[in-house]
């Protein structure tokens, strides 16, 4: 049959009506899909995946736990996971995507401080709540930001005073060469000098350096009492391998607040890292009823052979729980309502201990524990309850200046 204009117009009108009827159907289906959306931006591949994978697992676990309890405000939670592949550009891109396309209620993002400072301005601009859940160098003062990880004022100070009493007062510092490594080094120097000691050498290494032979010789020449490591990532693990290859393990002790964050104590052999002292908010070996129950539930979800629940993973879990409590108390997922609810100083009992939000800094008051690496486990040596984020509090007061939105470098 020849197609003339009349038949063409008729058939296209019918098909257009049919298609729009179908899409109306899917639109109404959308209206019923009222899940609260949360985004996570972490490195599940690339050099930083040792940190990222446990964090994403912990967030998945937290989402499932909250959904099993009926979700929040009667709505289920939906976790959108972005893999930033240890690539800064993807952090910026996915942050924008989460804020604008997915319109999430909260973003949990960033492992390194570099990635945090990429994501934070983006989420500020697009008014999306941002939770940064792992340890860092302190100083971020931003009402849209909540930090649930420890800062040097909480961990470095305690560990430095412990090891200067135990091992001696001269330190050689090896650190990753970016904002976190530089700032933590400044803190370590300050606390060591406060304890009457001195730093006999400081070296910085970009994240992809694997050749530490010359450094190990220089450390021996400088004759410190102990080594402080702020090394980060998979490539820097070769420092510990080369340290042991040189026979230095056991001859010169190491203290670190970054070791074990990426399960280094599991990946390396015990001979390569026994005796290292760390200070963290959480270790899987904590013997509290809440933690024992948590580990059991986590293992039944991910398998009893799950390598290790890192401090960063627990930080993400705690961040999610704090945000959920804020939503419950605010009665809504709207950003400023949740912020104001959190600023009332929400406090929860979580596997690492009691975690409370400090309204003036948007950081958390946390328990910290000094632990020793021993045969792939972290054995708690000393615990300090409820450490306030004193370093950030010295520069940041969001109650007085609620429009603040920057990171202060704490004057040392």
């Amino acid at each position: 049959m020849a197609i003339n204009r009349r038949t063409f117009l008729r058939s296209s009108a019918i098909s257009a009506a049919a298609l729009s009827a179908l899409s109306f159907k899917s639109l109404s289906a959308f209206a019923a899909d009222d899940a609260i959306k949360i985004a996570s931006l972490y490195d599940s591949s690339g050099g930083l995946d040792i940190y990222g994978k446990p964090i994403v697992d912990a967030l998945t676990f937290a989402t499932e736990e909250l959904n099993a309890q009926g979700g929040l405000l009667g709505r289920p939670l939906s976790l959108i996971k972005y893999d930033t592949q240890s690539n800064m550009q993807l952090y910026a891109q996915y942050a924008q995507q989460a804020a604008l396309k997915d319109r999430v209620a909260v973003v949990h993002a960033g492992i390194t401080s570099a990635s945090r400072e990429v994501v934070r301005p983006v989420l500020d601009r697009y008014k999306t709540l941002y939770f940064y859940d792992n340890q860092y160098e302190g100083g971020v003062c931003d009402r849209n930001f909540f930090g649930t990880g420890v800062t040097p004022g909480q961990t470095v100070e305690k560990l430095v005073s412990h090891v200067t009493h135990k091992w001696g007062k001269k330190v050689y510092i090896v650190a990753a060469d970016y904002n976190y490594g530089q700032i933590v080094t400044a803190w370590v120097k300050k606390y060591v000098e406060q304890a009457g000691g001195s730093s006999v050498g400081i070296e910085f290494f970009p994240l992809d350096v694997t050749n530490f032979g010359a450094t190990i010789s220089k450390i021996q020449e400088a004759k410190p009492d102990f080594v402080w490591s702020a090394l980060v990532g998979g490539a820097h693990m070769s420092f510990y391998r080369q340290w042991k290859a040189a026979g230095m393990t056991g001859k010169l002790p190491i203290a670190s607040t970054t070791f074990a964050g990426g399960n280094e104590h599991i990946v390396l052999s015990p001979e390569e890292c026994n005796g290292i002292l760390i200070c963290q908010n959480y270790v899987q070996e904590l013997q509290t009823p809440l933690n024992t129950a948590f580990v059991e539930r986590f293992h039944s979800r991910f398998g009893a052979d799950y390598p290790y629940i890192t401090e960063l993973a627990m930080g993400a879990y705690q961040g999610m729980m704090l945000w959920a409590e804020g939503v419950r108390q605010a009665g809504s997922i709207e950003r400023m309502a949740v912020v104001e609810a959190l600023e009332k100083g929400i406090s929860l009992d979580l596997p690492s201990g009691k975690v409370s939000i400090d309204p003036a800094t948007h950081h958390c008051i946390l328990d910290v524990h000094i632990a020793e690496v021993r045969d792939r486990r972290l054995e708690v040596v000393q615990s300090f309850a409820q450490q306030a984020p004193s370093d950030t509090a010295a520069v940041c007061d969001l109650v007085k200046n609620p429009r603040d939105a920057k990171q202060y470098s704490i004057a040392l």
Partner: protein
Amino acid sequence: MDWAAIFSLQIVGAIATLVLLSIGLAVVFGMMKIINLAHGEFMMLGGYVAVLATHHLHVPIWISILVLAPLTVGLFGMLVERLLIRHLYGRMIDTMLATWGLSLALTGTATMLFGNTTVGISSPLPGITLGAYQTSGYGLFVIAVAVAVLLGMWALLRFTQFGLCARATMQNARMAAALGANPGRIYSLTFGLGAALAGLGGAVLAPLTGVIPTLGASYIAKAFITVIGGGSAVITGTLSAAGAFGVISQVVTFFSTPVFGEVALLLAAIVLIRVLPQGITGRFFRRAF
């Protein structure tokens, strides 16, 4: 005195590392004039064979590093030569493209199979004490392997039938064919030998740096720089270039950081190529191999 000993040991170690990185490429490029951009990935494969054989198959570490890795990668190299390189002799740009594609494919396959995490093996040798200093016993092992490889290559080229045919084919393939050598078989074996040496290099360096699928990318630049800086002679070229670059980079590393050591190595390479465009053996040691 101890300090000087440690210092010299580390310099020799740096030279040995560069030798092991580049001898495989020197064999392939120097003898066959093939630009093998998958050289780094051959090293990565050697590293993975060593790590996986030690951890999962419980092969003793020395055997997996010194025997299993070169053998596996050498056989894989011969396969690559037969399937890929053979069709592209004389077409230099095309071999570059093909081997680059191969390197991307190998990196992707390794990421799929092994994941993107660094795996490693513990150094099997104890530290050694030189006076007041401790250094890695494994560094001595690296030096020993590099020396053995160079001597072995020299013996192979100088004393064996295969070495003679290989040198002849290198100089003039058609005349060598007219005299009875089989160039196809020679090329196949030479490429396999280059791949095996790359695998050995990757396996020997695995306990020091760990193995990750993107390892090849960090090695390939230095390997190429050493080979081109060395010139067309396989053994003398590699040794002289590795010597020059190793000394410069390690000395600068000692007095500052590894980053500046790398920068110094690259600057030295630029100067060297400018002054000696044919590499070191284009001008000195011309008749050596």
